[in-house]
């Protein structure tokens, strides 16, 4: 099977990640942050190394600002529900994943907050202006994906962060598709809450995610419980990361994630991005020539796009296409990609879209074989 579904989760994982997971199961088996024996402290130290690696990757000085979560959705929910208060207004983009849309919509349905959706444009200035127009006196937060999980469109988070600073708003970025692919220095950009998956561009195991924030102590908590600290108190500690990490952490996942981050740092996010974009661009140029293929962006350029590309074949449902490609040995995702706003924007809410998402281990040969398979599928349509 040739795997082009890296936007869902990257596969295969680097050998170092598999080894770190094996070590977590065989060598670092104690509960970190609970006991005082050497094995517990050694395990805690390994968890800390992963925390430190994530802090370094995202430009954060203090590793206690890194919270391990179970995925990006968990990180987003932790930040949104911890921050938002009755009467707050939120602005999000029209490319958001359900991980953002659903918690915000739920808070709105429960009468707690209001929200508006900003239209995004190819020109960053227009996108920023679109957000700016929706700001109201009660607006407290802008939430924005760093890049669309369906169409690979990158959003101008640097400019939006500037807008948030000017208007005294909090800024949350969903970096599920970009962490490990694009350089992100959260404090320098001005991101208050950086949420990401650990199992996508950071090459960790599934069941891992990150929330990076200097504001953790001020958030209300989604979950309370044991933290191994201030244990007499009935109150959840303010101390980070304990405040947002109740219960035993996912040691196996976190150690694997640390190895995944080390892999990204060793290769360099910029190099990984260039490699993946070259393949995605080659696929884009090849399939653009096929009259049956529908593409959703006029170009597919380094800088403005991620190595995530969606298409359809006229007369076929997206799931039919992915099924036909699966039979030819290719793993791609079809359907709605948990992003109804993005599909509504591109007119693919009914048909869905076939998504090609490139990873570090894909090769040019695999990309060319995929193009051939798409050509064959077109002939059947």
């Amino acid at each position: 099977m040739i795997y082009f579904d890296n936007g869902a989760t990257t596969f295969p994982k680097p050998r170092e990640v598999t080894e770190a997971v094996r070590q977590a199961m065989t060598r670092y088996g104690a509960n970190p942050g609970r006991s005082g024996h050497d094995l517990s402290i050694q395990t805690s130290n390994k968890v800390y190394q992963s925390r430190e690696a994530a802090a370094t990757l995202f430009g954060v000085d203090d590793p206690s600002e890194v919270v391990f979560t179970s995925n990006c959705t968990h990180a987003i929910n932790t930040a949104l529900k911890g921050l938002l208060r009755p009467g707050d207004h939120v602005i999000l983009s029209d490319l958001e994943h359900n991980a953002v849309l659903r918690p915000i919509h739920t808070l709105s349905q429960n009468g707690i907050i209001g929200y508006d959706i900003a239209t995004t444009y190819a020109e960053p200035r227009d996108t920023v202006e679109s957000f700016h127009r929706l700001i109201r006196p009660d607006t407290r937060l802008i939430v924005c994906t760093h890049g669309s999980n369906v169409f690979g469109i990158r959003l101008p988070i640097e400019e939006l962060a500037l807008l948030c600073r000017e208007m005294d708003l909090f800024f949350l970025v969903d970096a599920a598709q970009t962490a490990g692919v694009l350089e992100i220095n959260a404090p320098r950009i001005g991101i208050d809450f950086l949420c990401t998956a650990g199992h996508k561009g950071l090459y960790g195991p599934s069941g891992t995610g990150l929330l990076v924030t200097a504001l953790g102590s001020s958030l209300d908590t989604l979950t309370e419980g044991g933290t191994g600290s201030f244990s007499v108190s009935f109150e959840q500690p303010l101390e980070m990361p304990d405040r947002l990490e109740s219960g035993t952490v996912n040691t196996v996942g976190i150690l694997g994630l640390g190895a995944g981050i080390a892999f990204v740092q060793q290769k360099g996010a910029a190099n990984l991005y260039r490699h993946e974009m070259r393949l995605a661009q080659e696929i884009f140029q090849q399939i653009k020539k096929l009259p049956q293929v529908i593409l959703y962006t006029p170009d597919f350029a380094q800088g403005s796009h991620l190595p995530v590309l969606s298409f359809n074949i006229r007369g076929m449902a997206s799931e039919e296409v992915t099924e036909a490609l699966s039979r030819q040995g290719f793993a791609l995702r079809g359907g709605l990609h948990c992003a109804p706003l993005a599909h509504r924007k591109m007119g693919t809410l009914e048909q869905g879209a076939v998504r090609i998402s490139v990873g570090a281990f894909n090769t040019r040969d695999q990309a060319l074989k995929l193009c051939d398979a798409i050509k064959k599928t077109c002939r059947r349509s």
Partner: protein
Amino acid sequence: MGNPTILMSSLTSALRAQKLLEQRGIYSYIRKIANNQKLGGCGYGLEIQGDVNSVLNILQVAGIRVLGVL
């Protein structure tokens, strides 16, 4: 009398402090502390070999919170 132990607000803080001190050539050992009033229960301390005041100064400059010294 043994070496002084600095009471830390979390294990993550203790690990951060330990690493920082290691960079300055100061050896420390992380200990679990049982039910201490300053820790608000059980928690972790950093047993150090060296001058406690200079260590406290290093931690303060780095913004690492300390809850007390045993």
